[in-house]
């Protein structure tokens, strides 16, 4: 369960990025986070990843109070989450396998397990035959799928995605978002930030719409 309770985020000397936000996403649910640029979508995801600190309020994730989480516990917390970025954030000097394996290496998984789990994750995203390719030799959609494989290889409790289809065309976007829906159907809690209205309508999933740091549609506050 992801729960924002009166969460505010502001930066010193700047306007509030999120204001008194109340949002609840039950375990195993999938929802979309929409809103124009600057609405606070990325900040909300950063708070969930604990890349930023909550200014006021409480943020609970699967029983963990993220807003008061001690620094030394952040890595263990992040290992329970999978994250996909719009710009993929791949290591361009490492092959596909090494990029995906990184998530398992930081968790201390042994080499044999890494081999099998990385292969399985890449098969899942349709890149089983690109395991030793360098990212630069892949298309944008394929690079994004490597990013997704990296995010799901450790079977996280929660999967977050920040504009994962932002640089992709219509059919690729559909493919990628359908992939997220598959993961959700296997029990993962999924939250995807997107501004692709066509996909939002197609998927018919619960939507949290942000405008200037505030949730706009009260009917959609809870997924």
């Amino acid at each position: 369960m992801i729960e924002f309770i009166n969460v505010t985020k502001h930066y010193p000397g700047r306007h509030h990025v999120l204001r008194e936000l109340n949002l609840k996403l039950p375990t195993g649910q999938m929802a979309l986070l929409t809103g124009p640029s600057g609405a606070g979508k990325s900040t909300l995801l950063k708070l969930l990843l604990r890349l930023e600190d909550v200014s006021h309020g409480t943020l609970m994730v699967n029983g963990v109070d993220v807003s008061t989480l001690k620094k030394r516990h952040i890595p263990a917390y992040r290992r329970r989450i999978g994250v996909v970025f719009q710009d993929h954030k791949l290591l361009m000097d490492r092959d596909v396998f090494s990029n995906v394996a990184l998530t398992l290496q930081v968790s201390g998984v042994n080499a044999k397990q890494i081999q099998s789990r990385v292969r399985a994750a890449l098969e899942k995203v349709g890149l089983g035959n690109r395991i030793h390719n360098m990212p630069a030799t892949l298309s944008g959609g394929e690079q994004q799928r490597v990013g997704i494989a990296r995010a799901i290889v450790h079977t996280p409790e929660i999967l977050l995605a920040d504009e994962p289809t932002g640089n992709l065309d219509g059919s690729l976007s559909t493919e990628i978002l359908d992939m997220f829906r598959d993961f959700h159907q296997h029990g993962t809690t999924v939250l995807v930030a997107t501004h692709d209205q066509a996909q939002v309508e197609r998927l018919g999933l619960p939507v949290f719409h942000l405008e200037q740091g505030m949730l706009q549609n009260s009917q959609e506050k809870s997924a």
Partner: protein
Amino acid sequence: MSAIHIRLEAAQNALHTLVKQPLATLMTIFALAIVLALPVGLFAALNNLQQLLGQWRDQAQISLFLHQDATEQDVQQLQKQLQSSTGVVNVRYVGKSAALQEFEKNAGMTAAIKILGENPLPASFIVELNPLSESPAALQAQIQSWARLPGVASAQSDLHWVARLQAILALGKTAVWILAIMLAVGAILVMGNTIRLHIAQRRDEIDIASLVGATRAFIRRPFLYQGLIQGAIAGVLAWIIIAITIAILQGPVDRLATLYGTRFELLGLTGLEGLILIAISAILGWLGSRLAVGQHLDHTFS
């Protein structure tokens, strides 16, 4: 995965990074080795100087003149006491007649002695001391205590040069220590700067690893191993540099020693000293890395 496996993987990662950039790695190792070889070489030189000066024991001779009425028993007791004293290398007894013969031979005053009728020279002990065995004050105190022994009339010594020599050696040691500390800081900075460059090259990897839940220790470990490995190799290289330098100098030293009618074997580092050098060098490499990576991680994890 066991802790050993995680560390082995980090070590492999570190080695891989070093091997991937052979020129940069070799330059860092050579720079560190030279920085380390300098003070260690100077320490070795001081050790050799100390050994050489220790051989000049005949330059630290004490003459203990005995009373005219000293008995055979007094002489034997004195000899025993002197031989068991600290820093004494040799004790030689010169009887009255031997003293007279020596005096006649050296001074050529046979006629003057004959006029006196009897032998006026006292028996004595010539004590050879290692000038570096004790402090000048302790040596002086020892000589004074010998002068008070039964049968001893007076003691004659010139230990001013010992005091001067020891002062020069102490100055040399202090100067080398200061240099060693400064160069150790230099070694840490060289390694820190090298690791900073490695961190800059791998910034993306660090950031992404942090995003997927890597701990500080996980990120830090390969860099620390890089410093440790480079430091240890630099220590071995510094040892080799010192050994080669000593081998090169041994020839000229042999020729010089022959001119003085003596032999002098230059001392290098012992096995234990070499291992200590490698350990210190590895620690300095590790410290430099730790400083650099710690600073970066403070920023990444803040």
